[in-house]
Every structure is written in C-alpha cells, then in structure tokens.
C-alpha cells in the first residue's frame, strides 16, 4: 500500500452511520454511545420522553456480549440523586458522568449537583429536556429558564435552538466537561429538537474559538529552563519546604508524578480535603489533611514551613481562612494550576506555572535531578516526624459511649485505604477525612467546596456503578442521609452491595459544635432528639436484608466486621457520643497558631478562648 492510499483511507474514516437519518433524540444517544458512556442516571418526564425512548431502543438493539444493556439507565428517587450518582461515578472513575432529566422541576432538582460539581471541578454532562421551542418563555407546563439558572452555576450551558447544531453541541459538551479545569456542562434540548429529523454526521464539534485558543495555550505551556532554575534556586535556599496538594492532583491524574517528585527531593506533603488520596497518607512524609479541621501536625508544619509548593490547590477559606496569616514564615510560595484565574486569587505567590500538572512535575523532577539538586532536609524531616508523634490524632479512648473516631478506625482496619468512601457533610465527613487512610486517588468522594448534605448515598451508588467489584462505603450522618434517604431504594433496586454507615448523634452535629463555640449553646434547630425516625426500619423497608443498630462499645469490632463482610447491601446505624466534637479546629478568623486541639491532642500553644462573636465565615 503506498502512502497516498493510506492517507486517502484515513481521511475517509467515516462514522459507520454517517449520512443516516435520525431523530434528534437518537442523535443524542448515538453521541453518548460514541463517547463510551457506560451508564446513565436520570428520571423521566414529558419533555425528555423522546430521549428516554431512544435509550430504550438503543439498549434493545445493542445488547452487550454478557446480555446486559449497553447503556443502562439508572433511575433515582429524585433528580438530585441522579446528579450525585453521575458525580460519584465521575469522581470514582475519572470519566464524564452523564445525567438525563426532564424540563422544569427535573432540571431545577439538578441545580445542586451541577453547582456542587462546578465547585469541586467534576466533569458531568447533563441533558435536560425543555418545552418546545415555540413554547419557551410562555410559562408553559414544566418550563424553567434552565440556561439562565444553570448558566450561573455550570461550566457552560447550551440551549439548542437550531436542531442542526445538536450533534456537534452534545459532542462538544463532553470536550468542555473534561478539558482544562473539568466541570459540569448542561445541554438544554427543546422537545421539538429531540423530534427533529436530522442527518447523522459522526464527527464535528462547535468552533468555540475563544475557549479552544485559551485551552491550547494552557495545555501547550511548558516550564522553561529559567522557570525551573528560579524554582530550584528558591527550593535549595529553603530549609523547611512543604507541598500543599489539592484536588487538582486527583483531577490531573498526577499522584504518580507527585510521588516521583517527593522521592527525588523529599518535601513533606499535606493535602486538602479534595486532595486526599493524591499522596499516600501512610507515608512518613505525609501530613494528611490541613486546614480548619486538618491534623494538628499538618497545620503546625504549615506554620513552620519556609517554602510552599501549591499543586492544584486554591487557598480556599477552609484552608487559608486568614490568607495573610497562612504559612506566615514562608519566604517563597510557588503555585501550579490549570486555571489561570486561581493564580494569586487569594494569596500572592512568588512563582507560578499555569499548565498540566503531570508535565510540570515531571519537568521539575527531571530538571532538578539533572542539575544535581538534593535539598538537605534531615532536620526538617525530624521536625515533621516529631510533630506527627507529639500532635497525633487522638480522642477519648476510655469513654463508655461509642466514639465516632473509633468507628472509622475499626472500618479502616479492614479497608486500609482500599475501599471507596463517600460521605455526607458535617462532623462525620471530617472524622472520615481525619481517620481513614488514603492510599490512592479516586477512593474518596466528598462534597468539598459546596458542602452538600445528602451527597454521600447517591455518590456511593454512582461509584459502585463505576467499580462493580470494589467495596464502596457511604459514611453518613443522621442529618445528611435524610436529605437523600429515598436513594436507599435505589441501592436495593439495582442490587448494589453498597455499605451505608450512619453515625447518629441525633442532630446536626457540626452546627451544634458551632453553636456551642460561638452561640453560647443555643441549639437553634439542630437538635433532632424528638424525631421518631427509625433508620434501621427505614432501611429494612427499602429491602436491606442486613440492617442493624450498634449501641454498645464492646460490640463495635464484631459488628463492623460482620457488616463489611456481608455480600449485599448493608446498613449500619451507630449511636455515637452526641457530644463528640471535630478536633483540631481552626476557628473562623483564626490562624493555625490559634488552633483548638481539644482535650486529647496536645497543643503547642494555649489557644485563645473562643468568644461568641458572630462568624462571617459559615
């Protein structure tokens, strides 16, 4: 074969269905199939019926080799559940999560997961049905201004008014969701566009000249010799350098590159809530979580360090509550991020690079090695080891009441960082973040920035669809799980072996903690002790064959073992010490030096007594 013929063959590499006539709904489903979407999450309704019908027909016509459906449609109890399932799937797999909902309430119920995914940079494509083009703006049945609403909280939203653009638009949505800083993309499709007769092309995307030019510039930017030299000049002057690693390490798939960088230069690593799993938390150089509820040793190390390398982290208010007093002894702050808007947004930096994290780390590692840079950090390593030893996480191990930390530790003795853990939001989320081992990326699913209660259960369901053979555990709170309790039935409907733990402290524990500290113990609306809810019976009613309540400390180990060993869906409610608090705590407006470490973690300075001044931070 000569070269000319080969070239001709590749240019005529047409989609097998090119030229075929399809409905708009079929076009949407075909793009999903071409993108390799393995599962869809969504709830049906009038304005999205053509797409649901096209999914049904696609699955009937394209059975998998094992007889299963090519693109199973997982139906939640509420559209918010579908959104968080798609997000859990995306977080656990690194692939784009897809949700399909109807117009009006279907779309507005999806707003929370879309905003949550935007805030945590999670790639989603959400297809919303919309009323017919002619009815838009007429206050039609189940109409909502989705492009206005979603435009304010998604990475991008398309309202498809020209049916001929539908195929390119849906394909482009995937590119947008996964490229650069990932995020959710919403495609609002009027019903008449779903029913339009279209010719399938099989390729082609929207131009988006501005976005693509900016993306190309970021993706192609590389660290020059001068950049590397400036970085290492500062690093070699430093005596106490520290890496502050965020969710960008996970999103970029940069944990191996980070490991290699640390192996080469020996910088200790602290991770944000979103960065957990980006660096093995059991490593001697790992300082685990930093910030408002970070480990005391991580926060003290931040206070002591003289050099910070921020990787895919954005100095948010749960980490740098008082930016001027964050890492106060740092003489040099370096920042690498994929998003130019994050450079210096909160805290001025001395050196930065906007570009793909893996390439930046690999380049720095190679450059530093080639120039023989080997920071001498023995004294700093000894200091970090001492901080970890002296200020280790601890709690009341003698209490007769079940301590939530002990529950996490008991589960962790079985899982050792190998289970996928999702959470709701509040105290249980922080305890899970503090007491679990995190050894690999994409094993920790939590609503970091938005802090959405109710995230845990649907996220666990989505993750189980991404990893059918993995142990997936939702660590939840009694208040958080209530927000999406309806999804218990989704677990059993799809026979998912998800393990659900409810740490029940009979209230909104984190809110109570703040009310204790800052509102003189006036527990406005956070006490749930009068509720008659029986969680175990609720789980049983939804088909959980294994559902138990744990109330005695001495049964903890055996119950946790039986719970985790159960092969199917299992539900464990644990009645925990209702006064258990989350420590350490860097109060709002406080510096790390003023951190409260509680009664069981030694502090190195007497913290300032908390006043009852109202907080502006919560």
């Amino acid at each position, binding site marked *: 074969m000569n070269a000319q013929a080969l070239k001709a063959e590749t240019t005529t590499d047409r989609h097998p269905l090119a030229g075929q006539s399809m409905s708009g709904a079929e076009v949407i489903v075909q793009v999903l199939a071409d993108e390799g979407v393995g599962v869809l999450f969504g709830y049906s309704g009038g304005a999205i019926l053509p797409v649901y019908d096209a999914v049904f027909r696609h699955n009937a016509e394209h059975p998998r080799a094992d007889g299963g459906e090519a693109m199973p449609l997982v139906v939640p109890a509420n559209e918010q559940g579908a959104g968080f399932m798609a997000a859990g799937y995306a977080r656990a797999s690194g692939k784009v999560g897809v949700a399909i909902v109807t117009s009006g309430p279907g779309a507005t119920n999806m707003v929370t997961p879309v905003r949550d995914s935007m805030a945590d940079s999670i790639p989603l494509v959400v297809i919303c049905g919309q009323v017919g083009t002619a009815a838009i703006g007429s206050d039609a049945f189940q109409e909502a201004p989705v*492009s*206005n609403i979603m*435009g*304010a909280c998604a*990475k*991008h*939203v*398309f*309202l498809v*008014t020209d049916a001929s653009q539908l195929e390119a638009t849906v394909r482009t949505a995937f590119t*947008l969701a996964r490229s650069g800083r990932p995020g959710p993309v919403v495609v609002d499709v009027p019903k008449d566009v779903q029913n339009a007769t279209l010719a399938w092309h099989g390729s082609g995307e929207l131009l*988006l*000249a*501005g*976005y693509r030019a*900016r993306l190309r510039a970021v993706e192609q930017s590389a660290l020059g010799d001068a950049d590397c030299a400036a970085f290492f000049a500062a690093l070699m002057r430093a005596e106490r350098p520290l890496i502050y690693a965020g969710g960008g390490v996970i999103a970029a798939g940069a944990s191996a590159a980070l490991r290699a960088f640390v192996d080469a230069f020996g910088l200790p690593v602290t991770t944000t809530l979103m960065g957990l799993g980006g660096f093995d938390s059991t490593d001697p150089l790992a300082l685990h979580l930093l910030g408002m509820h970070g480990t005391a040793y991580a926060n003290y190390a931040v206070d002591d360090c003289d050099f910070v390398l921020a990787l895919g982290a954005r100095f948010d208010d749960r980490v740098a509550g008082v930016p001027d007093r964050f890492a106060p002894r740092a003489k040099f702050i370096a920042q690498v991020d994929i*998003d*130019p*808007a994050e450079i*210096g*947004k909160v805290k001025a930096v001395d050196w930065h690079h906007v570009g793909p994290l893996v390439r930046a780390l690999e380049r720095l590692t190679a450059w530093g090695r080639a120039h023989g840079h080997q920071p001498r950090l023995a004294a700093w390593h000894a200091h970090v080891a001492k901080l970890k030893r002296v200020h280790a996480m601890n709690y009341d191990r003698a209490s007769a009441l079940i301590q939530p930390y002990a529950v996490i530790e008991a589960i962790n003795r079985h899982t050792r960082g190998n289970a996928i853990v999702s959470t709701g939001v509040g105290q249980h989320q922080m305890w899970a973040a503090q007491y679990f081992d995190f050894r690999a990326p994409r094993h920790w699913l939590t609503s970091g920035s938005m802090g959405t209660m109710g995230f845990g259960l649907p996220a666990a369901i989505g993750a189980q669809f991404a990893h059918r053979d993995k142990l997936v555990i939702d660590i939840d709170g009694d208040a958080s799980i209530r927000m999406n309790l309806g999804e218990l039935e989704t677990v059993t409907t799809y026979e998912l072996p998800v393990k659900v733990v409810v740490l029940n402290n009979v209230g909104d524990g984190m809110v109570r903690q703040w009310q204790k500290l800052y509102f003189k113990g006036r527990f406005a609306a956070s006490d749930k002790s009068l509720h008659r809810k029986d969680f175990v019976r609720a789980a049983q009613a939804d088909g959980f064959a294994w559902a138990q309540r744990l109330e005695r400390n001495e049964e903890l180990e055996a119950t946790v073992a039986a719970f985790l060993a159960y092969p199917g869906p299992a539900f464990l409610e644990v009645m925990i010490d209702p006064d258990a608090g989350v420590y350490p705590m860097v109060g709002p407006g406080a510096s790390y030096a003023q951190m409260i470490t509680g009664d069981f973690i030694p502090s190195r300075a007497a913290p300032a007594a908390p006043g009852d001044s109202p907080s502006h931070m919560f």
Partner: protein
Amino acid sequence: MNHTLSILLQNEAGALVRVAGLFAARGYNIDTLTVAATHDPAVSRLTLSLQCDEAALGQILQQTRKLVDVLQVAHPAAALAA
C-alpha cells in the same frame, strides 16, 4: 478606579446573561454596558465600565476569560499605558 473593558462575545443564547451574571455573582457592579454588532454577525462587542481596584480587575478579567462564549477580553486603557 474606573475601568472600561471590551469583550468580544459569541452570539449564543444566554451569552450576555452569563457575562452580566458573572460580574454580579462575584460582587462587581457594572456602571455602563453597551452591546453592539460587529462585522461578523456571529460575534458581538460588549463594552462595560466598572469601579474596582487593580487586584480585583485582574481577577474579574481572568474569570471573564473562563466563560466559554468569550472570544477576547481587553482592557484598552491598560494596553495603552503599557
């Protein structure tokens, strides 16, 4: 300080709302706003003015550049001064 920005925008459904919404959501008050056609019917030019300090201006320029419909953001006065 008063700043005037010139933004080239793809003429898509909701594009103007997204620019205006971004400024509002990030706490900036738009003083004046003009939208005009360009020689390319698919592109509009948006000229807006606002009061903010230099650091805030840099941040809102970066945030505006993250909008997918935005082709170009310019700060003509700064470009002239430079």
